[in-house]
């Protein structure tokens, strides 16, 4: 069902794995949905739940966090912290009326350009089906903390 809505998705990608996968997808000329705005962090463990909440408040319909596979984190355990926080955060988002599916966590290594392309496409489509996040608290242009 195409409801004519183009999702706004924020992607927090770790420098060592998912961000490099995105580079690889690019240099390999892979085509994928342009809806994800990528924010590079050194580790997925740097992604503070406040950043996810900020994204939802300021117009994001979905948030994607990309990190290294378990066991492969460049900083040893950062991605484990991300996993723990994301599980709890999804539980809490549901209480705010934000469907837990709008927050997605993926382990994508630097070699998986194709996987990155697939996740970008799948997640965009999933958010399109969920629809825009209702009643955004702030208009997109009013960005004051």
């Amino acid at each position, binding site marked *: 069902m195409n409801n004519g809505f183009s999702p706004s998705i924020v992607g927090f990608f770790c420098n060592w794995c998912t961000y490099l996968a995105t580079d690889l997808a690019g240099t390999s000329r892979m085509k994928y949905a342009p809806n994800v705005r990528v924010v590079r962090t050194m580790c997925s463990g740097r992604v503070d*739940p406040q950043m*996810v909440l900020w994204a939802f408040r300021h117009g994001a319909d979905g948030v994607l966090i990309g990190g290294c596979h378990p066991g492969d984190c460049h900083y040893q355990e950062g991605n484990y*912290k991300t996993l723990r926080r994301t599980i709890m955060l999804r539980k809490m988002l549901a209480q705010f009326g934000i469907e837990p599916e709008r927050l997605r966590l993926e382990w994508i290594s630097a070699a998986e350009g194709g996987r990155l392309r697939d996740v970008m496409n799948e997640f965009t489509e999933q958010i399109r089906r969920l629809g825009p996040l209702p*009643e955004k608290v702030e208009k997109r242009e009013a960005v004051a903390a």
Partner: protein
Amino acid sequence: MAKPKVAFYWCASCGGCEEAIVDLAEGVLKVVEAVDIVFWPVALDFKRSDVEAMSDGAIDVAFINGAIRLSEQEAMARLLRQKSKLVIAYGACAYQGGIPGLANLTEKEAILEYVYHQSPSTTDGAATRPQQHIKVPEGELELPEFYDAVKTLDEVVDVDYYLPGCPPTGKITFQAIEAILKGELPEKGAVLAGDRALCYECELNPTKPEKLLVSELKRVHQVILDRDKCLLAQGILCLGPVTRGGCEAQCVKGGMPCTGCFGPVERVRDYGGKALSAVASIVDSTDEKVLAKVFEAIPDPAGTFYRYSLPSSLLRRRRMAVSSRQEIS
């Protein structure tokens, strides 16, 4: 030199902050000697019209506690702001929304429906709701508007300083009043409490391990506390690490974990997000199923992490159902 004029007012409040002033005990006499209380509805007989008759800035300091949910509360806050040189948001409700702020997890319609129609103590014949305007034989009556969301004080008026706590302790209240009397207040917008997280004030801090990991989370009714060991290290949900200090860890001294009433430390925008982050991070597992099981000990993350701060949070309130959406200014 004339004594400074002081006002106290309560908005969506439990009255605990008013109690906190009274609880200064013998200390309140020093306060009463040093200042001139010109408005305090809970304790003194001054009227709103007395405040309206004052000139702008005639009141030196207004301590306003309670959150904002009624148009009357907003109107009184604006009136006091106009008539006061300084406005201090007193207590967690004025600062971050407080316990009443948890109403932002539900909706106005659901609240009115439950309170006036569905509650166990409501008899059928009494199924009527208060109306904002109603004509009675004597004339027309008005009630304040009940907003769609609970707001913090600084969403409706410019606030000079914040005194956190549920309620603020006698010590930080005194310190604030002293600072006002001496003219030694910090930069505008400051939170007048500690600078660091609560752990630094807690006497159990030496027992907190360098690398804190727990295999399960426990609620206070499920365990008998070891009073000599860091509560969080025992798996009890203590929010000390993410909560501003200044309260001298009274709750922990009393055998209960910190629930975060002093709000976040400096530079944290959203208390609940930070608290969630800290608590989730220390669970010692890398398996999704195990983590989900451990997190069952927190069935209500929003209520636990945003107990005092929901209206001040980034999301502010639960998304409203389409039919009851209204502009939240």
